[in-house]
């Protein structure tokens, strides 16, 4: 058994065949048996299977692309549950992006942030205000709502505005550490929500607790984006951008300085890493992903109100990062996907099922105990279990593995321009004799 597993782990062909069969069966069953949440989830988990193959990165990306761009939307499109599947898939994408942003702040830089949802809110309100008549209340020029074509620019604007709010949060917060930092960020998140809740007087900017309704849908080449199946593609593109960006940063000077600050602030500074700049950059870049997704969220819901941005949301995203694996990009992606699906699909399905049992009289549980109402309890239990048994998360963070051979070859080619080249061994010995 074990030796066969070992063989499988090394054999790309076997992996490929297995993956193909798996994807084939799950997508076929999703296509045939519509409304089957299981089939939908199984098809999504083929990506996890893919992650564990030995294929080249490019191949992995290509296969994932085919599954996400064609297979998933197509096989799900056969029945009336289509839009609800795509809604789940879209939300998964939105949450992954946010979790990746928070992962930069919490996982890589080690700054505990309990108010992260604020940046999502900022993005959502940025589009919400200008894509409705709301902006006419305070803008001296221009006609509002802006057209649906402006949505695409607003993704960028949302990104920048959120980044600026990230900097604003960063400046006062940099003086505090650890528990204090958590409290200050928590306060920041709540303040932003309360400001949006109360900014209807004296000048009506956010329309207060009533929220902003009828947000203009995005428009491209004369087509309005109205359904989750359309937003799915917008989210997919932004998500891909997010993942690529995070990966680039992770293995660069900037990513290393984030981790260095997390590991040891004093040593990082002594090595020339500017503390304030590095932390601010983490806050701003992390926030910007959330801001972009906030814009998409506002357009997708066509409605923005403060209740979408509560502390529980901030904590949910934090739980995604912790469960997935702090600082681990694949881990956080998995954590966010699992949590979102658990939240939206599994809990509601179980509740529906229990309700059915209830109504047929087989079994009866009080309404207060229905699983969808126990979300917080379940998150809490999960957190405790993970803290005890898997403190590094589902897929723990790994360091980049450098290829020693390549570096050695680099050494022989390199003539040592800046650093003094390493002298021949005989020379070293001579130097010692002197």
């Amino acid at each position, binding site marked *: 058994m074990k030796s066969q597993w070992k063989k499988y782990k090394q054999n790309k062909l076997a992996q490929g065949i297995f993956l193909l069969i798996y994807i084939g069966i799950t997508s076929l069953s999703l296509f045939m048996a519509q409304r089957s949440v299981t089939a939908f989830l199984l098809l999504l988990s083929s990506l996890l299977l893919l992650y564990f193959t030995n294929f080249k990165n490019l191949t992995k990306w290509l296969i994932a692309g085919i599954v996400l761009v064609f297979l998933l939307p197509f096989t799900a499109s056969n029945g009336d549950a289509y839009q609800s599947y795509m809604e789940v898939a879209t939300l998964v994408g939105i949450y992954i992006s946010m979790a990746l942003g928070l992962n930069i702040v919490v996982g890589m830089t080690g700054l505990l942030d309990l108010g992260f949802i604020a940046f999502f809110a900022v993005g959502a309100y940025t589009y919400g205000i200008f894509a409705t008549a709301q902006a006419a209340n305070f803008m001296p020029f221009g006609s509002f709502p802006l057209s649906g074509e402006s949505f695409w620019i607003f993704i960028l604007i949302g990104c920048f505005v959120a980044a600026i709010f990230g900097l604003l949060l960063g400046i006062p917060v940099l003086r505090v550490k650890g528990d204090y930092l958590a409290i200050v960020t928590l306060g920041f998140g709540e303040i932003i929500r309360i400001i949006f809740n109360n900014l209807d007087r004296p000048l009506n900017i956010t329309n207060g607790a009533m929220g902003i309704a009828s947000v203009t849908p995005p428009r491209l080449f004369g087509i309005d984006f109205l359904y989750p199946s359309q937003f799915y593609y917008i989210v997919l593109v932004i998500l891909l951008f997010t993942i690529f960006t995070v990966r680039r940063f992770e293995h660069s000077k900037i990513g290393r300085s984030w981790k260095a600050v997390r*590991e040891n602030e004093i040593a990082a500074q002594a090595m020339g890493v500017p503390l304030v700049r590095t932390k601010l950059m983490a806050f701003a870049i992390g926030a910007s992903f959330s801001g972009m997704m906030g814009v998409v969220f506002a357009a997708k819901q066509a409605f923005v109100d403060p209740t979408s941005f509560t502390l529980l949301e901030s904590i949910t995203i934090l739980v995604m990062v912790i469960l997935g694996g702090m600082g681990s990009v694949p881990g956080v992606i998995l954590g966010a996907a699992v949590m979102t699906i658990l939240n939206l699909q599994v809990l509601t399905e179980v509740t529906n099922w229990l309700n059915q049992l209830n109504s047929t009289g087989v079994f009866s549980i009080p309404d207060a105990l229905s699983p969808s109402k126990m979300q917080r309890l379940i998150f809490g239990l999960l957190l405790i279990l993970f803290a005890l048994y898997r403190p590094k998360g589902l897929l723990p963070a790994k360091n980049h593995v450098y290829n020693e051979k390549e570096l050695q070859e680099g050494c022989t080619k390199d003539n040592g321009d800046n650093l003094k080249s390493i002298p021949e061994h005989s020379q070293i010995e001579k130097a010692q004799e002197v």
Partner: protein
Amino acid sequence: MSILEVQNLTKKFGGITANQDVSMTVEKNSITAVIGPNGAGKTTFFNMITGVYQPTTGMILLENEKLIGLKPHEVSKKGIARTFQNIRLFSEMSVLENVLVGMHTHIKAGLVGILFNLPAIRKEEKASEVKAYQLLEYVGLAPLLNEKACNLSYGAQRRLEIARALAAKPKVLLLDEPAAGMNPKETNELTQLIKRIRHEYNLTVILIEHDMKLVMEISEHIVVLDHGEKIAEGKPEDIRNNPKVIEAYLGTGAVQAG
């Protein structure tokens, strides 16, 4: 020619005077040792030079440039690198990454370059990796490049700190008790390493050390601190026979052993 000039440095922590009126001149390309009993203020002295603490009064000049008021990362940019008495590696990062962080100020890559993965940035990154690897070879840690820093042995961690400091291409290298916790064989290798570094990187080295054999063998100039004050300075043989130093720190045994 002097490279580092310290004038009348005083540091007070509330009621404690950790450094009192300490002055010294460090010659370029020399090895200077700072010695003294526990709590004499040696580490505090290093912390002031590297910008971790601001001195209460006094002046620090590196090649006639003031270092007072600079943040630690700015001091690092000016050309001073250090190691720490209580090892401060980036424990969860790999050995090679630790050295790469040391190169921070010399890697030019910016936000945009990294985001678009420009060819120049990729090339720079590759070159930095090769240089980091060379430094690991130099301190004898090359085979461990992908190991987590916290998994290294004590002696290896100290050598990694030296490699990381060298990566910053300093003019002056400060070593805070580099031989602490090492066995005699490791200490001997370290002694050779420090000598080599000084020659081949054309560095000025200042080190704090309690191992008198190492100090006497390696240094050209010794400064003795006691209760925050400089009680003596000079050549090793002068210090060894200085009655004040013997009383405050070395004890009579050390003279015979040395």
